């Protein structure tokens, strides 16, 4: 008698058609943007031959340059700060044994994932508004602080996963071999945790680079990031310059996410 085959969605009628439709719906718009970023014409519907014109245009645009530098600066600070905070949080929640309110702590750490972004944005606008009034400080610090905060859960997840997957006997072995808790952390835990930390930092970087809603509410005048600059462009005339920036951003994100994938896949 043949072995009963387990249920498989691939054998449902119409599976292939649905799968193809889903992939087309997901990727067609992105492919369109990428293709039209190389269009020689300034049209979004008519193909006028291959050209790097809009890339040169975007590159030469001072506003785009400044926004890019600002985006990278904020994303770098946000990735660094959130990764440090997330690493400490992950150590605290995986290395202290069970304690009262641990579930509550998880929920608090992951708060930015659950609270609607617009609510966080409005709250930050109000709080930062008050601080601005009180201190007169107008700099990029607000954006860096806000980005650092909402990037924490994204950095936290891969780090915690790595820590939970780590053999705790290794830390016992280090202590057994005369390592103080700090030495055991530096020589054993941290090196083994590095892939998780790198993955967390990359994810945080991408999330920060991509943010529109919170940035739009928190930024002061002249503090456009690449994402909010593009949003502003759509309100005026639409030029394929935005396509070029989008494609460049997409390429950067793909590189980082591929790195994230490679790092998390290789679990020694």
């Amino acid at each position, binding site marked *: 008698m043949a072995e009963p085959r387990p249920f498989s969605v691939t054998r449902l009628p119409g599976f292939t058609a649905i799968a193809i439709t889903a992939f087309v719906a997901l990727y067609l718009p992105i492919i369109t943007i990428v293709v039209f970023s190389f269009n020689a014409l300034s049209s979004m519907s008519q193909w006028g031959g291959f050209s790097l014109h809009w890339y040169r245009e975007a590159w030469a645009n001072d506003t785009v340059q400044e926004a890019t530098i600002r985006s990278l600066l904020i994303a770098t600070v946000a990735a660094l700060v959130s990764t440090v905070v997330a690493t400490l949080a992950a150590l605290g929640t995986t290395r202290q044994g069970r304690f009262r309110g641990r579930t509550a702590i998880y929920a608090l750490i992951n708060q930015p994932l659950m609270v609607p972004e617009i609510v966080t944005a409005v709250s930050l606008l109000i709080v930062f508004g008050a601080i601005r009034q009180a201190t007169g400080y107008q700099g990029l610090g607000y954006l860096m602080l806000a980005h650092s905060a909402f990037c924490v859960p994204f950095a936290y997840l891969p780090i915690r996963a790595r820590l939970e997957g780590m053999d705790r006997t*290794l830390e016992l072995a280090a202590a057994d071999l*005369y390592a*103080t808790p700090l030495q055991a952390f530096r020589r054993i835990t941290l090196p083994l945790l590095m892939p998780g930390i790198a993955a967390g930092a990359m994810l945080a970087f991408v999330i920060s680079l991509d943010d529109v809603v919170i940035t739009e509410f928190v930024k002061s005048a002249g503090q456009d990031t690449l994402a909010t600059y593009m949003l502003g462009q759509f309100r005026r005339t639409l030029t394929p310059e935005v396509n070029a920036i989008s494609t460049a951003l997409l390429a950067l994100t793909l590189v980082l996410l591929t790195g994230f994938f490679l790092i998390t896949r290789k679990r020694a």
Partner: protein
Amino acid sequence: MTAMDQPSPADQAIAADHVIKRFGDGDSVVRALDDVSVTIAKGEFFTLLGPSGCGKTTLLRCIAGFETPTSGRILLSGRDITREPPNRRRVNTVFQSYALFPHLTVAQNVAFGLEMLGKPRAEVSRTVDRMLSLVRLDAFAARRPDALSGGQQQRVALARALATQPEVLLLDEPLSALDLKLRKEMQSELKRLQHETGITFVFVTHDQEEALTMSDRIGVMSAGKLLQVGPPREIYNRPVNRFVADFIGETNFLPALVEDGQVRLTSGEVVGQGQGQGRVTVAIRPEQLHLALPGDGGAIPATVEGSTYLGTDSHVQLRLVDGSRLVARVPSQPSGDLALPAGTQVGLRVAPGAVQVLAD
């Protein structure tokens, strides 16, 4: 344990003094260690033997410093180390899973403890070389642990733990992950290493054969209690109770009566001398029973119920006249074995001194 088994204070490597360890609280409290006291001498190969969950690993973790006893003391060379963290105890562990650092090479693994102790670089590399040749892994110094076989990883774990010359080496079922042939090799390897280094070994296992072949002394544990401590021969030949007799080797348990120092089976025969009075249980090892012709003077009449051929010998299942069953171990003969079909009438002789009267 008799007073004679106690090493004098100067010779003590490690001692547990009325150690109690409880896990959990309220109704779900578990006594992992229930008032355990034992003293292990310097240079001794001491084995903690017992079924899983008997507390042997918990006792080892208390000695290593990974657990703190609920009460009682742990002494290292007479000094109280009960509250000291693992990194301040001159005690190293070979873990069941080996716990080699995966991101370090074999040589870096072995060097780790020496570096933590702040040894000079030249001394570290000299010691690492010596340790690697001691465990015959010189050629593997630059490899990562995941490029080694299980037996090689085991030897790295040993070299790493021995490199710092600890006062006591703790081994937590280190051979259980190896196949039979490799396990036999590592058993003699461990004995050789212990002999060459002179370090006290505390070895945890649930394998009674491993314990008997390797140890200077064995401590048998069950349900958090240390039941008997003694040399392998003493544990095997003079088990203090039914659990020890049953756990170590194979044994026949028979009901008997003790009258005026004579042990009489319920089937009527006197089989030896023993302490006590009244109804008792006696233990007789299968190899201490010899088959004789039925009606042979003084032999106990028995009926063969079946036999199992085991290569070097056969197990013969027997029934006595009162219905009690027992097993005799009969050595194989080069000329072929006696045919002992079920129903054959035989006589049984018990080797002198083979009868153990047990406390239940």
